[in-house]
């Protein structure tokens, strides 16, 4: 086996993943907080006001990174769902299901901050425009995946059923992304491009990219934290969980122990 396959096999094993994720998590949180604080400060206080939208455009620094993450998290969930369905890898099931709640959170923030931006700029909280509607559908897809997963008792079966639903819903991702080009929408087009020049000044792009980096890191932090809990639950019959629970009893759970014995 070559190095890469070996690495995948190792990381795919729940106790190894649990341990490595536990080491990574504090660092992820620290870097997320640092980049987020820097990005927020830069965006809210340092970047100049927009010549058309005044200071209201500063909502962009939370709205746009969250919107990117709502699609990224869905893509990540669908990819892991695909791997889970094809190769039946337990960790992929866990990762797919762990990305659903944080993806739903980002989608919710996108919709509400978009509404808060729409009121002063468009004069309405909501309109059934292609971008807004497809993003709302995205939220319902997340909620559907979460609902299906929680409705089925056997968690491995539940994850596969929900992964299947996630895969069907993936058609909505390009619809959200291209909606501003395919239809004549009230929502503005993209100003930041991966390929080609962005239509945004560097003083505004810097905080936006900082926030994008922070939200990406936050996504992985939340993903790892949820996956670790899900792994304990899924593997509760295994030795490594038994050891983990016993060692946690000796340091953290003393108060509970006392109460339990009375």
């Amino acid at each position, binding site marked *: 086996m070559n190095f890469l396959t070996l690495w995948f096999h190792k990381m795919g094993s729940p106790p190894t993943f649990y341990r490595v994720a536990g080491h990574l998590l504090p660092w992820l949180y620290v870097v997320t907080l640092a980049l987020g604080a820097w990005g927020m400060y830069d965006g809210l206080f340092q970047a100049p006001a927009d010549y058309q939208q005044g200071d209201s455009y500063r909502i962009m620094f939370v709205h746009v990174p969250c919107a990117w993450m709502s699609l990224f998290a869905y893509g990540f969930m669908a990819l892991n769902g695909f791997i889970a369905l094809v190769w039946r890898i337990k960790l992929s099931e866990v990762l797919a299901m762990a990305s659903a709640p944080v993806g739903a959170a980002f989608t919710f*923030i996108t919709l509400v901050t978009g509404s808060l931006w729409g009121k002063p700029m468009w004069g309405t909280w909501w309109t059934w425009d292609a971008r807004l509607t497809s993003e709302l559908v995205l939220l319902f897809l997340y909620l559907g995946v979460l609902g299906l997963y929680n409705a089925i008792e056997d968690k491995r079966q539940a994850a596969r059923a929900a992964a299947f639903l996630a895969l069907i819903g993936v058609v909505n991702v390009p619809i959200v992304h291209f909606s501003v080009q395919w239809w004549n929408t009230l929502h503005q087009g993209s100003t930041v491009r991966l390929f080609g020049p962005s239509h945004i000044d560097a003083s505004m792009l810097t905080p936006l990219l900082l926030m994008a980096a922070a939200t990406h890191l936050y996504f992985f932090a939340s993903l790892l934290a949820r996956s670790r809990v899900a792994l304990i639950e899924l593997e509760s019959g295994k030795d490594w969980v038994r050891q983990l629970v016993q060692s*946690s009893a000796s340091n953290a759970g003393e108060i509970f122990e006392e109460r339990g014995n009375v």
Partner: protein
Amino acid sequence: MSDVLAMGGYGNYVWISCALFLFVLLLDAIAPLLRRRQLLTRLRGQFRRQQGRRNTP
């Protein structure tokens, strides 16, 4: 200072957006911590009961 907070008259929209962003992500960060604690407490009890059953003849 109050000029900065006013955000050119859009203060409410901007600050509520930021507060919502932080609040929702904070809830998202706390959720797995609470779940982990509940789960560990439950498993601890479960393992102890199993242990007890094994020890009584």
